[in-house]
């Protein structure tokens, strides 16, 4: 993907999946532009060059299932933005590169965005180590880098002024928001099961004090290596007096994990609460998951269409192409990563809002874009923010939003409780706005 846009259009005969989608995005935008009033088209024509957003995609490696849905959501969001006239009257184009879920490649991909494919900004990527590996390059390249990672690394101050996370909440706020529900509704004695690496430690380090603060107690912490493929041997470490099991696993073996947990407990299980990460992109009707009936999950955004869903949520789901069960409308077995991918949609809308606030014209305005986003605070729920009302903290570059707790009912996830963003806040750990660009 090193050629210029004009070449790209003429060379469409060799169009490839990612390229084809970019083209579709463009075509949709062009069609929409034709229907708009003349002045708008004129404005668009003035700077015909589209705004280019580099999208680092987990297309291969362990993050691949997420990458696919992140891309679908992003393409859908841009189709909407373009149909509504683009950004500052310019069309927006997604330039997708595989980062291999690998930090080295992700850093290279950022270089490619900045200097080769002439992207205005970079965006994307979930896995923490990939973000942490790539972020220093973003700062060196002075390339705004909007991540959709849910890691705490942004708000912890580890990264830099050019890296922001305005579209998805971080694990620290998610976890602390769960503690009251856990202790008040499910039980006081909690056993945690989490992957034995950074993402799991975020859960361990944040949940334990939050549970204590809420009057409960973490009775055991069981770390499981991320490469593990069989889990039954870890379950005996769960103390007998456990009232709640809190689980969060990622990677290809998540289904095995949940299944074996069910087989372990049989009919006499404690209350079970999990982060949906354990089952993201996994069909709840998969064999072995029957036992999850009646257990609870954190969801970033509900996977199943809720009865009381507002119209903008329905519109969002239709645009992305997921059915009432959160699976692809074209393939019911292709389950989405609904709890995370909304972050791409919202981030792209924030980029639009930021660029318009900064009157973004060219890459010279990148700094102004960062400052414009830093100045944002409240983000009302609506078509741009279908997951719910949020507040952005410009100092920590981190957004705070609602958290959903859903119960498996008749094989579907039904929202049982919603935690508003006010209850997920925590003291600032960094002030990026004091750092130099």
């Amino acid at each position, binding site marked *: *993907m*090193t050629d210029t846009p004009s070449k790209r259009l003429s060379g469409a005969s060799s169009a*490839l*999946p990612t*390229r084809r989608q970019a083209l579709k995005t463009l075509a949709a935008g062009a069609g929409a532009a034709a229907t708009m009033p003349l002045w708008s088209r004129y404005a668009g024509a003035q700077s015909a060059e589209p705004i280019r957003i580099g999208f680092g995609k987990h*297309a*291969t490696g362990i993050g691949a299932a997420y990458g696919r849905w992140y891309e679908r959501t992003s393409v859908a969001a841009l189709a909407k933005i373009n149909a509504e006239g683009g950004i500052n009257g310019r069309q927006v184009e997604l330039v997708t*590169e*595989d980062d*291999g879920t*690998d*930090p*080295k490649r992700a*850093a*290279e991909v950022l*270089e*490619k965005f*900045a*200097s*080769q494919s002439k992207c205005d900004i970079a965006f994307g990527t979930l896995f*923490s*180590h990939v973000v*942490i*590996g*790539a*972020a*220093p*390059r973003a*700062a*060196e390249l002075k390339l705004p880098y909007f991540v959709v990672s849910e*890691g705490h*690394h942004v708000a912890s101050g*580890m*990264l830099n002024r050019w890296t922001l996370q305005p579209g998805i909440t971080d694990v620290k706020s998610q976890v602390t928001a769960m503690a009251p529900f856990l202790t008040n509704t499910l039980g006081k004695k909690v056993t945690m099961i989490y992957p*034995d*690496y*950074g*993402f799991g*430690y975020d859960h361990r380090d944040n949940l334990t004090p939050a549970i204590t603060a809420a009057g409960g107690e973490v009775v055991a912490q069981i770390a499981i*290596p*991320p490469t593990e493929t069989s889990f039954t041997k870890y379950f005996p470490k769960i103390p007998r007096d456990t009232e709640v099991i809190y689980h969060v696993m990622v990677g290809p073996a998540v289904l095995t994990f949940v299944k074996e947990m069910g087989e372990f407990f049989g009919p006499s299980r404690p209350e079970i609460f999990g982060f949906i990460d354990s089952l993201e992109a996994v069909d709840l009707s998969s064999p072995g998951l029957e036992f999850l009936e009646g257990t609870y999950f954190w969801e970033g955004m509900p996977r199943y269409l809720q009865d009381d869903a507002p119209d903008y949520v329905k519109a969002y789901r239709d645009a992305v192409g997921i059915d009432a069960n959160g699976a692809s409308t074209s393939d019911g077995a292709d389950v989405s990563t609904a709890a995370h991918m909304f972050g791409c949609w919202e981030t792209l809308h924030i980029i639009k809002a930021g660029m318009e606030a900064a009157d973004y014209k060219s890459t010279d305005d990148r700094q102004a874009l960062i400052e414009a986003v830093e100045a944002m605070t409240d983000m009302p729920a609506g078509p741009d923010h279908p997951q719910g009302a949020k507040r952005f903290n410009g100092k920590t570059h981190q957004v705070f939003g609602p958290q959903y707790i859903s119960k498996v009912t008749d094989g579907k996830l039904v929202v049982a409780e919603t935690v508003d963003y006010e209850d997920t806040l925590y003291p600032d750990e960094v002030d990026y706005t004091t750092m130099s660009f």
Partner: protein
Amino acid sequence: MRGKTWGAVVALHLGLVAVLFALNFVLPVYHQGVLARVMVLAVYAIGYNIAFGYTGLLSLGHAMFFGAGLYGAGLMGLHFGMSALPAWLVGTGAGALLALVVGALALRTAGVSFMIVTLMFAQAVYLTILYFGDITHGDDGFVVPGVSRTLAGIDLSQQHPRYLVGWVLFSAALLFSLWLVRAPFGRVLVAIRENEERARLLGYDTGRRKLGALVISGAISAASGAAYGLLFGYVGASFAGVQYSIFALLWVLLGGAGTVLGPFVGTLFMFYLIDLATGVTDAYMLIAGVVLVGLTLFAPQGIVGEVRRRLWRDLP
């Protein structure tokens, strides 16, 4: 080798060094960045080549040396705020030390066993990095602090200083390996590769020389890892994983094992191959696989090796 052709060889290598220097000022910014990266990684390949290409030690665990350099330098910066040069030296030293320990054990084996033993040791090193997550930040890795990315007041994260530091390191490694293969020590390494028993019966202590070669190889690989961390600012466990051991093998095989220029050519070629392949397919590692199989089948000598075979027999 007669003096005249040696002169041409030196001219070729110095010429490459000069061209790379000049490219800093003319290349578009993306390719300049790529080349800086390739030069630093080519140093890793040069290190690997000394063990594999010249001494015949087919290791499947060199990522542990690269990782030792990366973490040795990065941790000094993260925990002690050490500046770039001493941090780099610590990293390089850590790699040399690790190579000494691993070599003392692994060199008791040969051939297939050596491959597997090095693979296992590297795996243990990788897991150790994960295990001591409190210090190493485990799987996430960490960003190298700015203070460690400064050399004599120059910010190494800037485009030109980074390129030039990479160039200095690469040039030093390239010319060192050119010198080494002509030096008596290097020639004995080649003799060991060709026929270890015969070399031993010429009175050479082959065990110690292999160990020496592995330590040099490990130190150079670590020098590359340390520089990589300091220049590009990120230290992570994936660099110590099995795939990066395979990469070194791949680059050297592709460029030509046992040639001085091969590691650079292989690294450069493979980088652009993958860079272009990602535009065509998500499964770009497929290209790596096809290249590996193709090389073993059709060009075991690699690119520079084929040049030597067909065109320039005295190319070292």
